[in-house]
């Protein structure tokens, strides 16, 4: 049994060494090369608050969209914004759509963007195109025309398949030629059929661009927008249309930007706080529990590297709060050891042999360990499901921390105690 424990411990240590190499983020350790193993295999994912970046939340105006179409509009919007963000070269942009109550939102995360205001401008400037019917009514009394009213139609930029820059044959002015997809084609055909002889207004970003009079029903889903564009304006518009026009208007309601310098500084501070905290806990354990404390220190080391490896393997994005959650879990991971050691000491005092005292310590402490960890798991799960993305990072690291600590408290500590059984 002891031999088996020694072998298990050796295996655990070996895994831990690999886990340690896997999580250690620097190419050298005290001048010794680690081969930059960690970053080559799988680099750490760091949150915006640690590397710098911006989190933007947009409110989507769905008032002009039929409720059955809303989900597909959101999906389209997400794709379009993702493409736009890709255009200015953000690595791994994160665009998530969410619905809360009646409001539809888009969360855009831009990591490591130098010029956030430029990024915001580009996302916001995406053209929003829609076609509008025009209702002109004459005032019967004096025959004067009153201002025409515009009735927005379903035909919007979301049905644009592609756009092209063309030049008017007569004036040689730049024009935008758009081609609708099959759905848009049907809508456009119906719309032109209905409005023969009447103008059809084209709005871009809520500005009236032109209102050509429809001469006949247009099939084939092609339209030309004639406006007072400069060459550059027209070219930019075409580019944006091809990246995708926004299927619904959006408004920025929330912006959180962290500069890279502040993020770096926070990361450094958190890492050192974690190191100091862990070392202080280790010192306490050794001072209070002496020999047993040394085992707890070993178990804690294994716990730390295994948990970090789990974060990395699961590709969890480490945020400021996430690191805080992990540091808290370090403070709790030794709790199980304390409960077991106290119980073991009690059994020893009652005259039990070392081996049976250790076994009883584990067995009797288990119910407390189980119950207290389950309440923490419950809290972490509730935090995860009912809160915003910032808190999710914290909840997730806490949850994984607790799960690994249950393993390390039971398996790792028991193996260590059994392996060193004779020496006590």
């Amino acid at each position, binding site marked *: 049994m002891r031999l088996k424990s020694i072998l298990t411990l050796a295996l655990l240590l070996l895994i831990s060494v690999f886990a340690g190499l896997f999580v250690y983020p620097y190419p050298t350790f005290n001048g010794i090369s680690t081969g930059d193993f960690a970053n080559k295999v799988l680099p750490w994912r760091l949150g915006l608050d640690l590397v710098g970046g911006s989190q933007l939340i947009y*409110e989507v105006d769905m008032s002009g969209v039929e409720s059955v179409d809303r989900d597909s509009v959101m999906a389209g919007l997400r794709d379009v914004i993702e493409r736009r963000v890709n255009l200015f070269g953000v690595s791994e942009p994160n665009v998530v759509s969410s619905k*809360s109550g009646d*409001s539809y939102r888009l969360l855009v995360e831009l990591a490591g963007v130098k010029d*956030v*205001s430029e990024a915001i401008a580009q996302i*916001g400037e995406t053209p929003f195109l829609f076609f509008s019917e025009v209702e002109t009514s004459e005032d019967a009394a004096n025959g004067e025309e009153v201002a025409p009213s515009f009735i927005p139609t379903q035909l919007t930029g979301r049905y644009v398949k592609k756009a092209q820059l063309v030049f008017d044959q007569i004036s040689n002015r730049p024009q935008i030629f758009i081609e609708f997809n099959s759905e848009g084609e049907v809508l456009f055909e119906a719309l032109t059929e209905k409005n023969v002889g009447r103008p059809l207004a084209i709005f871009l970003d809520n500005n009236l661009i032109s209102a050509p009079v429809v001469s006949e029903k247009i099939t084939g889903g092609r339209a030309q927008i004639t406006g007072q564009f400069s060459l550059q304006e027209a070219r930019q518009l075409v580019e944006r249309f091809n990246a995708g026009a926004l299927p619904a208007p959006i408004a*920025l*309601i929330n*912006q*959180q*930007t*962290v*500069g890279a*310098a*502040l993020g770096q500084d*926070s990361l450094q*501070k*958190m890492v*050192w*706080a*974690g190191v*100091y*905290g*862990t070392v*202080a*806990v280790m010192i*306490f*354990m050794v001072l*209070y529990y002496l020999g047993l404390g040394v085992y707890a220190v070993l178990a804690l080391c294994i716990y730390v590297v295994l948990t970090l490896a789990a974060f990395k393997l699961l590709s969890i994005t480490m945020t*400021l*709060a996430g690191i*805080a959650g992990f*540091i*808290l879990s*370090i*403070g*709790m991971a*030794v*709790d199980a050891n*304390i*409960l077991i050691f*106290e119980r073991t000491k*009690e059994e020893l005092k009652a005259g039990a042999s070392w081996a049976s005292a250790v076994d009883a310590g584990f067995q009797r402490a288990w*119910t*407390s360990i189980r*119950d*207290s960890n*389950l*309440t*923490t798991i*419950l*809290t972490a799960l*509730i*935090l995860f499901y*009912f*809160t*915003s993305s*910032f*808190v999710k990072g*914290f909840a997730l690291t806490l949850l994984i921390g607790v799960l690994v600590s249950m393993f390390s408290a039971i398996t790792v500590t028991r193996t260590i105690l059994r392996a060193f059984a004779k020496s006590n």
Partner: protein
Amino acid sequence: MVIKYKNLFIGFSIIITIAAVASMGVFGFKQGIDFVGGTFWQVRLPSSEASAQILSEFLSAQNLENVLVREGEVAGDFSIRTKELSEERHQEILQLMKSRFGSVEELSFASIGPAIGKELRSRSLLAFVLVLFGISLYIAFAFRKVSYPVSSWKYGFVTLITLFHDALIPAGVFAYLGHTQGVEVDTNFIVAILVIMGFSVHDTIVVFDRIRERLLLAKNREDLGDVINASIQQTFARSINTSLTLVIVLVALYIFGAPSLQAFTLMILIGTVVGTYSSIFVASPLLTYLQKNGR
């Protein structure tokens, strides 16, 4: 010991809890931008050029409302709190600041609309209630085998009371800190409350677990008060030690960690200390009250 002076310990807790509730009632909470909307902006200016007062006057001159400027840890670092700003206004003011102070480094910028806060509040409340009842029900379930002399749902009920106690006191401290130091209540505050509830129950479980074990062994021959006394005495060291390890990492986090998490850390620190007290001096004595009333 504990049972003998239980009125004293519980009385002490009642007074502190009342003080905490009064603090919340009198001072209220200073709500952060994620609850009420607004802007939080951290900038680094050439330290020779700026002071909090100069910056504050400069910003007020740009028609910014409710401007509050604080100095950061490093000379030249300032945090600005004001109403919600649109991106255009943000850029405009940044440009004006640059022309006024020379170099301006933007450390962070957050502007939040009021819509998010409303949702956050209702979701926070829901999470709070779920944690409160989730834990209490779990305790009632975990102690289902010991229904004599105190029925297991009463363990759950006592847990519910101690959780309230442990959440209210740090919240009261924060209402006071909000009034005196301008400490704001934000999402972190809610997380801290939930975490406190999740953690503080640990020590309670340790004591309850021992009571459970002794009651099962004693087969009702012992007086409940004696069982509780003995249980508390035997688990005293581990209750203190398990909390102490958490306190150690929290203190490290408070001193060395990121400044933006200090309030969060302090809150959990207070909650941990309160939670340890309540698990030893409040939860177990409460059981004896319920036993007497229950029979």
